């Protein structure tokens, strides 16, 4: 009897263990949802282009709000840095933490271009100037009005010789007088003119379309009166940046535990609507327990929730899920040349193993992206058809045909191009009869990295291409980018992704002079099409963007890189957010009137899963 008691105890503990392990194992498999249920869900939610979203992008509920504290999760594997300054921060966690303090200085248009908000913006392409006019009611949280000086302050800090941040780049150097100021030859930046307290005029050397997306324009002001006495070198570690920042948005920081949590209260000097909640607390949390945190109501809002625990939170009744497409795409890249550092341009190699466009097309047709999305990503990734992400809604050509999985077509293309198996080993040789062994480089990280890489390899082997994993294993992220950037000669194929910026101009990733053009593809036609995108013609009569012209330019380029298979795009990513049912308003749209002051709570206590 005693013995059996012990055995029962042991079995109990072991079963707990297996339950915990089992959950992990399940993550990699496909969700076994009811088909009808899925259909029902799909009908009611929005679309981005022709992409059907699995969940709504906006949740808005009626009812009295109660004030209270909004608890927000910050999913981060390391403590956040906590640099509350828009020209000094570098990390996306800090950017998330600053959101409630920002005033929405500009808004975004359908292609994420800058639009008027608390600052109005005017482009004059003939004079090469941009005029910024600040909302006269906008104030810092200490009551001091936001003025043009606060914007000049940002320019002067970024251009200062002691500035060690990442924002002094070609776009800021494009402001007239910036380089002279940086070199110490001038005390002020000659291209920046204060018209009056609230108006600023910035003159650029060259007026290119990137300026419409804010190239060389600060997205936010910083309080000059509060920060000007701190030497720039010390600013990043100063308590006025780290612990007691000012805000011109709906909320201001009231308490910080460095690296862990931030508390915000309404900014009494905020010029917009009165915030609905009394307090916001953002806490760093561990992604592994996020499902349990949601179930127990610890957090009201989780943005960018990881899909690895999707099965554990997707059916919770106390939360609502929201979705949108992110500004990201994944791709399979081909090494087609080298970077010529001396000339500062790519040097395509016509004899590269994958230089034949037919071969690249076959590789693209052989990939079963749809099945990968189902098996590995709960269908939260969407097979991609182009190299412009869907968040640039009209520039992305949703109608363009992608390389949908078609192994027969891949085989046919290879046969026609002369890639046939001559020695009978089951794999194709190149048209000259030489062995064709293709090395594939893929990044380590996460449970699915290995099976995913093997899945693609099997896809290619199925059409007779001898693809092997470079060195037989996955590579750590730093090493991966080192090998890609240095054009390691043993790499032919690689799998990577880009998070795209607000400016969709692909010049920096696919241009002849772009160091990040990792495939090293270049052609005259590509140069011409990219030049059309960056051309002054992108400005319309009113100085603003000529959408019709740019749509054509972007669509033309997308079609060209599709035909050339410069890279084979694989996926767009769907990002998920979860909110507790007591949250009355949340919006993932980029073009939206939603801001933090509009979030309210419908009850004092969060809903808890039963």
């Amino acid at each position, binding site marked *: 009897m005693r013995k059996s008691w*012990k055995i029962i*105890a*042991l079995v109990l*503990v072991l079963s*707990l*263990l297996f339950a*915990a*392990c089992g959950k992990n194992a399940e993550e990699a498999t496909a969700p076994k949802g009811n088909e009808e249920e899925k259909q029902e869900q799909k009908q009611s939610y929005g679309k981005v282009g022709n992409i059907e979203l699995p969940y709504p992008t906006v949740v808005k509920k009626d009812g009295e709000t109660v004030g209270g504290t909004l608890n927000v999760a910050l999913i981060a*594997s*390391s*403590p956040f*840095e906590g*640099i509350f300054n828009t020209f*000094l921060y*570098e*990390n996306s966690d800090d950017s998330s933490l600053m959101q409630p303090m920002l005033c929405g200085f500009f808004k975004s248009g359908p292609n994420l271009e800058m639009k008027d908000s608390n600052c109005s913006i005017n482009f004059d392409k003939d004079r090469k100037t941009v005029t910024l006019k600040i909302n006269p009611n906008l104030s810092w949280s200490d009551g001091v009005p936001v003025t043009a000086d606060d914007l000049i302050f940002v320019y002067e800090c970024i251009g200062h010789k002691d500035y*060690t941040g*990442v*924002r*002094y*780049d*070609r776009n800021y150097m494009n402001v007239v007088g910036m380089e002279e100021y940086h070199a110490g030859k001038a005390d002020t930046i000659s291209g920046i003119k204060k018209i009056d307290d609230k108006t600023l005029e910035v003159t650029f050397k060259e007026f290119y379309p990137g300026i419409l997306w804010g190239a060389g324009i600060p997205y936010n002001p910083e309080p000059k009166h509060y920060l000007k006495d701190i030497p720039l070198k010390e600013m*990043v*570690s100063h308590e006025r940046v780290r612990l007691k920042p000012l805000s011109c948005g709906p909320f201001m920081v*009231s*308490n*910080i*535990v460095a*690296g*862990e*949590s*931030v*508390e915000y209260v309404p900014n009494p000097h905020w010029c917009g609507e009165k915030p609905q909640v009394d307090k916001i607390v953002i*806490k*760093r*949390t*561990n992604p*592994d*327990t996020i499902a*349990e*945190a949601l*179930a*127990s109501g*610890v957090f009201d809002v989780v943005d960018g929730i990881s899909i690895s625990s999707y099965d554990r939170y997707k059916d919770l009744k106390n939360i609502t899920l929201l979705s949108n497409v992110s500004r990201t795409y994944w791709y399979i890249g081909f090494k087609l040349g080298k970077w010529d550092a001396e000339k500062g341009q790519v040097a395509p190699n016509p004899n590269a193993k994958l230089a034949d466009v037919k071969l690249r097309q076959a590789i693209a047709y052989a990939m079963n992206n749809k099945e990968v999305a189902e098996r590995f990503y709960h269908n939260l990734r969407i097979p991609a058809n182009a190299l412009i992400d869907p968040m640039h809604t009209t520039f992305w050509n949703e109608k363009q045909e992608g390389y949908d999985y078609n192994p027969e077509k891949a085989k046919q293309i290879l046969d026609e191009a002369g890639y046939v198996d001559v020695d009978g080993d089951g794999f194709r040789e190149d048209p000259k009869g030489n062995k064709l062994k293709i090395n594939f480089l893929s990044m380590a990280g996460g449970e699915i990295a290995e099976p995913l890489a093997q899945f693609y390899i099997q896809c290619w082997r199925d059409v007779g291409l001898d693809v092997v994993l470079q060195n037989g294993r996955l590579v750590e992220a*730093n*090493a991966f*980018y*080192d*090998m890609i950037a240095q054009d390691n000669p043993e790499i032919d194929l690689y799998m990577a992704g*880009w*998070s*795209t*910026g607000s*400016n969709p101009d*692909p010049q*920096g*990733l696919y241009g002849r002079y*772009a*160091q*990040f053009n990792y495939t090293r593809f270049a052609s005259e036609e590509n140069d011409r099409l990219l030049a059309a995108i960056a051309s002054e013609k992108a400005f319309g009569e009113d100085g603003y963007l000529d959408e019709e012209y740019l749509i054509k330019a972007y669509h033309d380029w997308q079609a060209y890189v599709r035909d050339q298979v410069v890279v084979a795009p694989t996926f767009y990513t769907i990002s998920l957010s979860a909110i507790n049912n007591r949250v009355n308003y949340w919006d993932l749209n980029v073009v939206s009137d939603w801001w933090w002051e509009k979030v309210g709570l419908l009850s004092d206590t969060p809903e808890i899963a039963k």
Partner: protein
Amino acid sequence: MWKTILRRVLLMIPQLFILSIIVFALGKAMPGDPFTGLITPDMDPAVIERLREEAGLNDPIPVQYKNWIVRILRDGDFGRSYTYKMPVTKLIGKRAANTLWLSLLTVILTYLIAIPLGIYAGRYNGSKFDKAVMVYNFISYAIPRFILGLLLLLFFGYRLKWVPTTGSVDLGLEPGTLDYFLSRLHHMILPAITSAILGTIGIVQYLRNEIIDAKTQDYVKTARSKGVPTNKVYTHHIFRNSLLPIAAFFGFTITGLLGGSVFIETIFTYPGMGELFVSAISSRDYSVINSLVLLFGFLTLLGSLLSDIIMTIVDPRIRIE
């Protein structure tokens, strides 16, 4: 003995020097650098190049090493963290304080649990209690660290809500106040218990075996035959001798307090040294990696010295010469 200690301390200098060369060279041998992670389509490659230049990463490696070591020796300056944009000493200081408190609590709990369990299990070996202790020991030995942490966190943190689930302290408390201290304790208790449960395994096992062993030793038989009461035999004769293997590690235990545990810190979102070390390696935050390895190296050397000293105190037969 003092001479020996002094000699050991002096010997640390060349040892640390060699360690500094090795860690610096190995750090540089890793692919990538602190700025690799900055690459985005919006980033101007010239900016990354400028940052590399300003950080001195384009200098030859011996020059970089010389600059680094000179700054440490001359100014006590260990450099700035590339990621956290603050002096390494300040960053490590903050994390070390967190880790130190957590480890202290862990060690106290560990010994509080392990020593009585070990002693009673050894003294009454074969009893029900002993068997229960052995079962406890096997289970805690078999459970992976992160699974135990997760289970405890899910149950006590999310289900019962007895303890906070993230962080090291609540918002808005003034350091130095009682509330602050209590909040720290509240945040530390679950991670400390998790570590303590896992930390007891070795101690319980050693202590139990030593005691069982000692019971049959001649000196114990002598003491008993002389009529020494059983309790006194245990407290005066067996206990002290059985502590030897534990004492041998105690020096390392003390200096290991600063090491931290990446599993515990990750699960409980507790900002400590273990997490700092691992994330510094993956983000190639050289100044942090190098400083931490030097610190850990120094602590290990110190730990072995301390262990030797403790041994001489506990066991009069051992002398360091």
